[in-house]
């Protein structure tokens, strides 16, 4: 077979090329030919096809994601915004924090352990690529029905994979979610987030500049992993009946990645790195074209120099390989030796594979012949952009009209007690300890808060106590009822969780999990959710710094619930001031902050007791969220509250239960005037939290709420060995604990 060189391509314009198999559309292929003024070589075709896939080019979502930039609130904290591997925010004292959430949904369904493990690996490399030391991971998960047999296959594998990889890297897992819903049966969502810390001056970007600078590939050898994966994986509906379409499964090597972290940080510390990029989806195609197009010059790469695990790989395959645990650095010539020495110290294979050139072309050679000659911008940034048609689904009105407020409610204390127990023991509200006990939350010795707290919190400075907090949230049921509001509720909840711990929310990352963008209904959900999130961030003053879009999460015609997962990052001046959720002391007074309305659309109660999804989700008032946040932060800073817990799914009763169990104390609750016990306990109105106030602080605290106009209702006291709702029912703490803790182990056995 003759090598398909650039020269050869020029001479043989008529050659049939497998653009379709590689996932390109006819007009996209034509566009490639137009850009090049000839047909692409096989290697060029490989590059364009992966880089122009949905996964890499965001072709369906791009036009909408722009709002995150356009509507971004002014924020002095923002150091690096959308577009880089991850956003970076200033947290004070010269420290900067980078964080991001990504999806690894399809691979985790095919091979739960490895899919989830490599998901963690990928997001952590994004963090290192910014110049930061990774300090924590989080894992928002959505699984099929808890009692479905396939959930028993997927969930334990996913959890073991996330733990197996993250634990081996020495990254504390400080948060996440686990939600079960039948809509995720064939499309579980495995999102993974990571947080990294650096000094301002250590921020690095993915760009190759300075002619003559060397391009160094380091980390694992390149094998045949996931070849074509990027395009096939993300651009077509996963169809279990056609196993040949399954992407090759990649096996993660966390040990290699740990070495990669340490050697990269050492190279940063010695200021050896001009630009850096991790290798993720689209492997070398992505790294070389992005580095080159973001820099000032061009790049020349000798593909023969790439260390291979499988010597039979073709140049196209090398360019498309998605082998894990690799990075690409741009290094000045006189620093190359030192860079390689550091890699050697850490037993990391490192090879100079090319250099930055004066020109503006990306040129790739194989056996001395040029096989790629492209303008890197056309590969990395000028992919197709779709304005996909979208329309409010015809069924949306019917769904919203099916008001959950009309569902039969419990009559009397006994029935209310039964239903409360049913809700508390449902898999979505039960303790997630079965999962989180498989994750190391202590490593690095800086964990201040971790599961089951509202947010995870990490100390950044041992000297000052400066810390950061992160929480992720997203409720697909709310978003199904109204994607605009649903996205804002996800944002509001994560924001509230961060504030409840005492940290000031600063910035947002997101992972937008949706069905097929080719379905106008789904596209509408996506458009609405993005608009909701962008508008919400504007009001809350928390810019979106980056994120990830995962489309085609559907099985046949059935899409998952629209599931925008939102991560909010916050900062706290002194972690000694953090507020935990535990009711730790008897006699503390319980206050409910915010207003409770009759809001049951999409609620846990409507799902668990009535298997119902309809009506409208709870209303959002972001100004109110902001005020609530300010109160929670002030109360934490000034030591006015001893515990705080946000209210979300399951309503007040779920939050009180968690705080009681965590603290080992019961509580006596009184139903406030004007509310039914049912609404008081189970409504899911947003913008609420409960706090435990020491008696000595009561006046100061209520004065503050009064002065700022935040409704604060005294609803009870921390007391005894049971949870008592006066005049309604009592549940002993032991029984409550049993309900809470045995549900998930019972399901997974």
């Amino acid at each position: 077979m003759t090598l398909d060189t650039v020269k050869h391509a020029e001479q043989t314009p008529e050659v049939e090329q497998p653009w379709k198999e590689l996932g390109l559309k006819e007009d996209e292929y034509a566009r490639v030919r137009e850009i090049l003024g000839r047909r692409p070589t096989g290697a060029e075709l490989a590059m364009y096809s992966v880089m122009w896939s949905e996964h890499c080019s965001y072709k369906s979502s791009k036009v909408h994601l722009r709002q995150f930039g356009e509507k971004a609130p002014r924020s002095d904290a923002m150091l690096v915004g959308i577009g880089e591997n991850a956003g970076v925010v200033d947290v004070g004292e010269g420290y900067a924090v980078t964080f991001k959430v990504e999806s690894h949904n399809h691979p985790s369904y095919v091979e739960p352990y490895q899919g989830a493990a490599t998901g963690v690996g990928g997001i952590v490399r994004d963090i290192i690529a910014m110049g930061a030391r990774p300090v924590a991971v989080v894992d928002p998960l959505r699984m099929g029905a808890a009692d479905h047999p396939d959930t028993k296959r997927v969930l334990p594998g996913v959890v073991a994979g996330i733990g197996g990889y993250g634990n081996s890297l020495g990254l504390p897992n400080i948060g996440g979610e686990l939600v079960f819903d039948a809509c995720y049966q064939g499309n579980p969502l495995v999102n993974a987030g990571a947080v990294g810390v650096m000094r301002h001056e250590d921020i690095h970007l993915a760009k190759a500049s300075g002619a003559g600078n060397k391009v160094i590939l380091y980390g694992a050898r390149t094998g045949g992993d996931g070849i074509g994966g990027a395009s096939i994986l993300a651009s077509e509906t996963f169809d279990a009946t056609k196993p040949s379409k399954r992407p090759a499964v990649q096996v993660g090597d966390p040990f290699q990645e740990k070495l990669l972290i340490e050697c990269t940080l050492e190279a940063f510390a010695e200021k050896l790195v001009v630009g850096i990029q991790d290798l993720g989806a689209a492997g070398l195609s992505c790294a070389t074209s992005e580095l080159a197009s973001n820099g000032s010059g061009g790049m020349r790469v000798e593909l023969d120099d790439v260390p291979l695990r499988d010597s039979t790989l073709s140049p196209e395959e090398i360019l498309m390989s998605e082998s894990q645990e690799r990075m690409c650095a741009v290094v000045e010539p006189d620093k190359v030796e030192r860079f390689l020495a550091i890699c050697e110290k850490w037993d990391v294979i490192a090879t100079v594979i090319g250099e930055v050139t004066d020109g503006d072309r990306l040129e790739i050679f194989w056996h001395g012949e040029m096989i790629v000659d492209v303008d890197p911008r056309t590969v990395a940034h000028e992919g197709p952009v779709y304005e996909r048609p979208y329309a409010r689904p015809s069924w949306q009105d019917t769904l919203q009209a099916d008001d959950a407020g009309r569902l039969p409610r419990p009559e009397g204390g006994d029935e209310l007690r039964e239903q409360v127990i049913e809700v508390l023991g449902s898999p979505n509200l039960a303790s997630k300890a079965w999962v989180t006990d498989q994750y190391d939350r202590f490593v690095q010795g800086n964990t201040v808060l971790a599961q089951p707290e509202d947010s995870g919190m990490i100390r950044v400075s041992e000297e000052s106590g400066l810390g950061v907090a992160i929480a992720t949230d997203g409720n697909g049921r709310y978003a199904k009822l109204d994607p605009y509001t649903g996205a804002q509720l996800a944002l509001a909840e994560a924001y509230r969780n961060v504030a409840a711990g005492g940290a000031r929310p600063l910035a947002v990352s997101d992972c937008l999990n949706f069905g097929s963008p080719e379905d106008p209904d789904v596209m509408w959900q996506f458009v609405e959710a993005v608009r909701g999130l962008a508008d919400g961030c504007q009001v809350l003053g928390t810019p979106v710094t980056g994120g990830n879009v995962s489309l085609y999460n559907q099985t046949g015609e059935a899409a998952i619930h629209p599931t925008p997962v939102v991560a909010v990052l916050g900062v706290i001046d002194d972690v000694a001031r953090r507020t935990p959720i535990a009711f730790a002391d008897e006699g503390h007074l319980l206050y409910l902050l915010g207003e409770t309305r009759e809001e049951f659309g999409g609620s846990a109660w409507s799902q668990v007791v009535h298997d119902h999804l309809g009506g409208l989700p709870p209303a959002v008032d972001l100004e109110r969220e902001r005020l609530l946040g300010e109160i929670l932060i002030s109360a934490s800073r000034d030591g006015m509250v001893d515990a705080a817990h946000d209210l979300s799914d399951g309503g007040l009763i779920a939050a009180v239960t968690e705080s009681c169990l965590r603290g080992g104390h019961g509580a006596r609750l009184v139903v406030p005037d004007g509310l039914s016990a049912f609404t008081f306990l189970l409504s899911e109105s947003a913008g609420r939290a409960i706090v435990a106030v020491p008696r000595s602080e009561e006046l100061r605290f209520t004065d503050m709420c009064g002065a700022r106009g935040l409704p604060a209702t005294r609803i009870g006291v921390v007391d005894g060995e049971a949870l008592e709702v006066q005049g309604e029912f009592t549940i002993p703490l032991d029984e409550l604990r049993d309900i809470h803790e045995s549900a998930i182990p019972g399901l997974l056995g």
Partner: protein
Amino acid sequence: MTARIGVVTFPGTLDDRDSQRAVRVAGAEAVPLWHRDKDLKQVDAVVLPGGFSYGDYLRAGAISRFSPVMESVIEQARAGMPVLGICNGFQVLTEAHLLPGAMLRNTALHFVCRDQRLRVESTATDWTADFTPGQEISVPLKNIDGRYTADERTLDELEAEGRVAFRYASGGPARDGYGNPNGSQRDIAGITNAAGNVVGLMPHPEHAVEPLIGTGRTDGLGLFTSVLKKLVSA
């Protein structure tokens, strides 16, 4: 002059910086040691920290045990220098035959992370003198290969010679950290050599040295202050 305590970093070690912090919190000087160097930099004691050295790919601790630094550690340990192996470090010590027995996969077959209650069984070691016999402490535990195993004769010998240093405490509910988390024989969490200078344990005392952080307790500090006292008074 305070004591100098070395902390070894193998490829894949995770808790080296935490162990250094614990050493400092206890009031000693922490000296980083590198697996490829035989040179122990004249430290007075050595900590082999936790992690997944070499990925634990063959067996936990199996590859690290052959590193150059271990040649010196083995030699010095035999000569009486205090050595503490935590988790992966404990595994390295058993692989190096400085401590008897071996570690197997947890009976639950998965990683276990929890706040663990321990009973201090022996205070006659360089690393436990600051505790009182029978004292109960609580420190984080996190491992997947933590099931301590040895043959019956070895176990009997350990018991008879008072060389079980820490045991998983019973007497309370699992959620409060009681009970054997991994199927270790005779609830053994940590042991010592006959001379009392080499101690290995699976739980992580270095994660329990500061209020607020981790479990918020400082029960682990005693190991580090114990050795410091011995070194300073020596």
